[in-house]
């Protein structure tokens, strides 16, 4: 899969030094062909750096309260101002990217894995199993994502792990749908027939022979859903049903005081929202371009 873009394009980077490593050539190709996608990748990278190096990058402890410095506007000491507890907003945003990425990747990976297995199994068994699974998927999909996530949080309680699970569950049927349609085509290929003729078990055929061949849609679905997961995490935390204080999380930072003090301290409401938007924006752009580059057949929307 990954070899195609480089091979077709290598001659085009002829102006650059000849002995570029392949990965660098691929990166340059991506940057030239997909400027928007590259912008997205830069945002994603920034988020990643912020999440990994939060301890080094953040100027203050995100949890340290300082009642002498409450509701301060952006200044040299506090670039993005402080909140009602005198906590530094920039530091909280940097630490918040850790929460966002953790939940975002966790939920989409979990959702894509479980959804992918359901989709492949449904396509593989076909017939009555497929019909029942598809009806079940219909049912689960008739709930708005946020409503289903809310219900799951109500059952499990809040907190990061439960939140990740609550976001992953509504993703599963949606991913299962897409993966199933790719898997239906694979089921008809001779090598699956061959595997069956050799007497392999269902599990072995599904996991060893079919799943590796839906990796492309699988990866694309993961990147496509990370943005949505970050958005959902922010929404649920905003409702007070996701991450709980004092963990720094963008949605949580917009809750309560940010709205109450919106007029006196608008920076409290503006910057965390900008962080959410930029993060989701980055993942959406990057995901779209990645999809176009990896598999032109899947181009939609």
């Amino acid at each position: 899969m990954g070899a195609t873009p480089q091979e077709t394009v290598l001659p085009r980077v002829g102006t650059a030094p000849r002995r570029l490593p392949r990965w660098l050539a691929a990166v340059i190709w991506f940057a030239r062909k997909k400027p928007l996608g590259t912008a997205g990748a830069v945002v994603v990278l920034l988020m990643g750096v912020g999440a990994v190096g939060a301890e080094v990058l953040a100027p203050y402890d995100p949890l340290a309260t300082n009642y002498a410095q409450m509701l301060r506007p952006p200044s040299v000491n506090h670039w993005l101002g402080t909140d009602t507890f005198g906590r530094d907003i920039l530091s909280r945003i940097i630490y918040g990217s850790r929460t966002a990425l953790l939940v975002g990747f966790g939920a989409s990976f979990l959702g894509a894995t479980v959804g992918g297995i359901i989709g492949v199994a449904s396509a593989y068994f076909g017939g009555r199993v497929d019909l029942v699974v598809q009806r079940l998927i219909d049912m689960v999909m008739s709930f708005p994502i946020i409503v289903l996530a809310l219900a799951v949080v109500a059952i499990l309680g809040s907190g990061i792990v439960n939140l990740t699970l609550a976001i992953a569950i509504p993703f599963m049927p949606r991913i299962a749908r897409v993966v199933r349609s790719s898997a239906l085509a694979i089921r008809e290929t001779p090598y699956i027939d061959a595997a069956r003729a050799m007497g392999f078990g269902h599990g072995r055929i599904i996991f060893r022979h079919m799943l590796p061949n839906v990796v492309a849609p699988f990866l694309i679905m993961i990147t496509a859903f990370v943005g949505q997961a970050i958005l959902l995490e922010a929404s649920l935390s905003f409702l007070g049903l996701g991450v709980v204080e004092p963990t720094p999380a963008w949605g949580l930072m917009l809750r309560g005081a940010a709205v109450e003090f919106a007029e006196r301290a608008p920076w409290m409401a503006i910057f965390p929202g900008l962080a959410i938007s930029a993060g989701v924006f980055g993942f959406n752009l990057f995901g779209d371009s990645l999809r176009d580059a990896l598999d032109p057949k899947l181009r939609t929307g």
Partner: protein
Amino acid sequence: MHRYIVKRFLLMIPTLLGVAVLVFLLMRVVPGDIVELRYTLEGTGVSDEFLAKERARLGLDKPIVQQFVEWMWGILRLDFGISMWTENPITEEIALRLHLSLQVAIMATLFATLLSVPLGVLAALKQDTWVDYAVRVFSIAGLAMPSFWLGILIILGLLIGFRWLPPMFFTPIWVDPWANLSQLIWPALAVGYRYSAVATRMTRSSMLEVLREDYVRTARAKGLWEQVVVVRHAMKNAMLPVITVLGLEFAFLVGGLVVTEQVFNLNGLGMLFVESIARRDYTMTQALVLLTGFTFIFVNFLVDLLYAWFDPRIRYG
């Protein structure tokens, strides 16, 4: 066509029944019930005897299957029962909020349609020009911006710019249309932006696809006016997926406005849903889930009919 409609209609029943079973079981898996929540959390010593009596009064002591059958039997007679928390008839409680949620959903749909169809068509016609890029950035930004944050920004803007806040209490539109609109237009705009972003993307890509079809080239080759080609030939066919997106988003908005309602302090269905889950109000939650599920499935059904109407291949397939 008639057979197709009947078949599609009957297929709705098992799905809805499944939704009903699902929510019924789900609610009873949630730890804690309404009686426990209401009396023991207050810390006042309440005897177990009293709790048992309360449960019996609410019908929670009956076997689960019996509870389910009674609930279903009520729904067949369009009797949704009473809310376990407020003890008012559920239809009454929902009707009040349905008006609000439905109105916001309709206004947001109108806004999204009026914005997304022209923008999407324009972007497709001017593909790869600055117009196209501007429209795409507009729609990608709409997808990224949480609508609750946009809501906060709108409130902030109104507060700082006009020293004015939308009214806090809901007035039905027939009582005072001005008060009603000045409250609901803001949430409709906040969710409408995201919604129009989705629809604009769909319009653009669907238009791009159709514009490359042979019959569009034929129409142009015949020397038809560009306007006629775009509106009569291309748009007519490109609108189907757009209608799907608009329809499904509308269905989601009716029950899924949860977060935006919180920002604007609206007492809508989403808020009611969060409250009733938190209170373990089984009857209310079940009714709400059934309502949102039904809306979604019914809109899906209408969209399918529309497809069959426009595309005879589906009807006879």
